[in-house]
């Protein structure tokens, strides 16, 4: 398993963390072991291949009977990954507020807030599990660990991605 990193490359100058990240990726071991596998995406980098409906359609989709069991299955799966998720290098995954992130450890017990994002034609559901809040320099900055997953018809959970999403409530 490898880490899937997608970075917008629009600048003539590359930040210093890019080569460091590349070396890290070359040397890194798979993120998860027997519990399962997941990829990581840097904080706020685009999430590839995620099917995300518009808000109004998400709200409608959330009423579908298939959603609740899918959210439950995804949550259970993410909880099973929790030991591996806790071993994530959050600083490496972060692009902002790195200093306060240093030394931060995810809580022992998982806690996710699940919501459905969208649905593929075959009925597969893409779900977002919002995990614990991460440190930031300012109170108005809300950063959370997120786990994105695809729940296939029948309940299999695939395509698990861990990332950090940041929102500012100024």
């Amino acid at each position, binding site marked *: 398993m490898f880490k899937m990193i997608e*970075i*917008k*490359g*629009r*600048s*003539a*100058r*590359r*930040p210093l963390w*890019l080569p460091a990240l590349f070396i890290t990726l070359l040397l890194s071991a798979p993120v998860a072991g027997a519990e399962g596998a997941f990829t990581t995406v840097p904080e*706020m*980098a*685009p*999430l590839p291949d*995620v099917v*995300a*409906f*518009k*808000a*109004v359609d*998400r709200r409608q989709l959330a009423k579908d009977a298939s959603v609740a069991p899918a959210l439950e299955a995804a949550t259970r799966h993410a909880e099973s990954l929790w030991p591996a998720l806790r071993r994530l290098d959050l600083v490496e995954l972060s*692009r*902002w*507020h790195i200093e306060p992130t240093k030394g931060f450890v995810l809580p022992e017990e998982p806690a996710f807030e699940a919501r459905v*994002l*969208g649905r593929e034609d075959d009925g597969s559901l893409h779900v*977002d599990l919002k995990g614990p809040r991460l440190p*930031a320099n*300012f109170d*108005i*900055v809300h*950063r959370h660990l997120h786990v*994105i997953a695809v729940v296939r018809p029948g309940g299999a959970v695939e395509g698990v991605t861990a990332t950090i*999403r*940041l*929102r*500012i*409530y*100024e």
Partner: protein
Amino acid sequence: MMRALRYLAPALLLLPGAASATPFTFSTYDSMVADLQALAAAHPNLTDLYTAQDRFGLPTIPEGGDDLETWILRIANEQMESESKAEILLVGVQHGDEVVSLDVCLEIARLLLENHASATPNPWLKTLVDRREIYIMPMANPWGHRRGVRGSPGAEGTEDMNRDHLYDRCDGGGFCGDDEALSTVGAQAIHELARRHNFRVMLDYHGGIELIIHPWGSPLHFSDTESPDDRGHDLLGQRMSDYGGNFNGAYPVGTSNDLLGPVNSPLDDTAYATGWDPANAATEAAEVPGWRALSYTVEISNQKRPPVSTLGGDADLLTPGGSEDGYVPKNVRIGLAAIDSIEPWIEWTNRDAIPTSVAVGDTITLEWSVRGCFQVDETRVRFGAAANPLTTFDDQTAAQQQTTGDPCWLTPRVFTADVTFQNAGQIFVTPVAQVDNTLLMQNSPDPNVAPAAWLARSRTENGLLITNTVDPNETSTIVGRTFWGAAPLEISVGDGVIFADGFESGGTTAWTITVP
């Protein structure tokens, strides 16, 4: 809240040293409308007050039995002719609960208008009104303000207006608060203004933290946060922070991405980049080629509704650390710094001492200042028989410059030149200046393109940059200039002797009268 007394006694206006010690309080939607209408009524020649609903046909927002509207105040002196006055946009209360921004916007309007009408006006503030078109939208989100909430009604429920603009729409992951661009009435109103105008600077006042932040602030540019106009953004940002002063500490200045982190489709990135990078904006970007403003989100106070005791008063508005300093005076000064900086101009500083008639061989001293800029790359006096010596001149003095310090701002440097006229005749004289080539400095801009903001281009390029005719009653045009001049003085140079009464004696022109 502004009090009626202010309108009844504009002569009492609070200029430096004219303390009246009136503390600020929080305005409401109703008091804002009353204040704006009172200002417009008291200053009809300087104002145009309207709502986005009336002017642009946008819907009202029903709330509590009222139909709330988006009010816009335009301040300009139409009696001052200009081929294209520089335009600036000030926005308050995009987030309804960040109420402190409203009173900053209202106070800027009141200060400028009442000063202009004063019998003893502050000349700098008066000049700003005469030379600018200032658009103020003090409450972009009246629904949120009345309810005391952040959001505004949108197409899909309650939306965050400052994620509802055009640039870098959320394109995956469902992590945006709003999926439709311009779904809120306030964002639509700002968009309609942008369709009609070419703002050089946009200030968007907020609350909840204390910072001045500028592009980039969107995830699109998260790996390298330097915009093509980072130099200009930083120069003006630092000037605003400095003039704001140290009340509760000076505001740090930087990019949103550096200081906070990114958000999709904020107003500052939209106002800066939509006009020149429409490929990364919503389809409505085609309607706003003029969105190339240096843009700032000014975060006024750590509390969205700070204690009234911290708002300050109007006794000494223009002085950082003045006797009634607070969040409102601090941010009024920030607004004034932006208004000042959007376009250069040159002022004679010894005009009254310059004779209108001299004799050949006489030497006169000319003094002038260059304003509205950051650096003076070159300035000198040009003169000759042509009526516009800025471009057509017979002679000029040696070039001077000041590219360090702050020669154009607050206490501007006075440049001096001695001129001796060698030939008789009517001579036209003006100081000229080339300014702010520093705005072209770049390190690693993302994307790697030249500075794109009107503020930089209008003082480093020559010729027509844009003409906007969306509003048939008011064409908005930007003409770039690499040399700026003052209104020329006409001096009669005779080859005889000039007496104190203006009569000339002797020489070949015999007796002539020079009109003072």
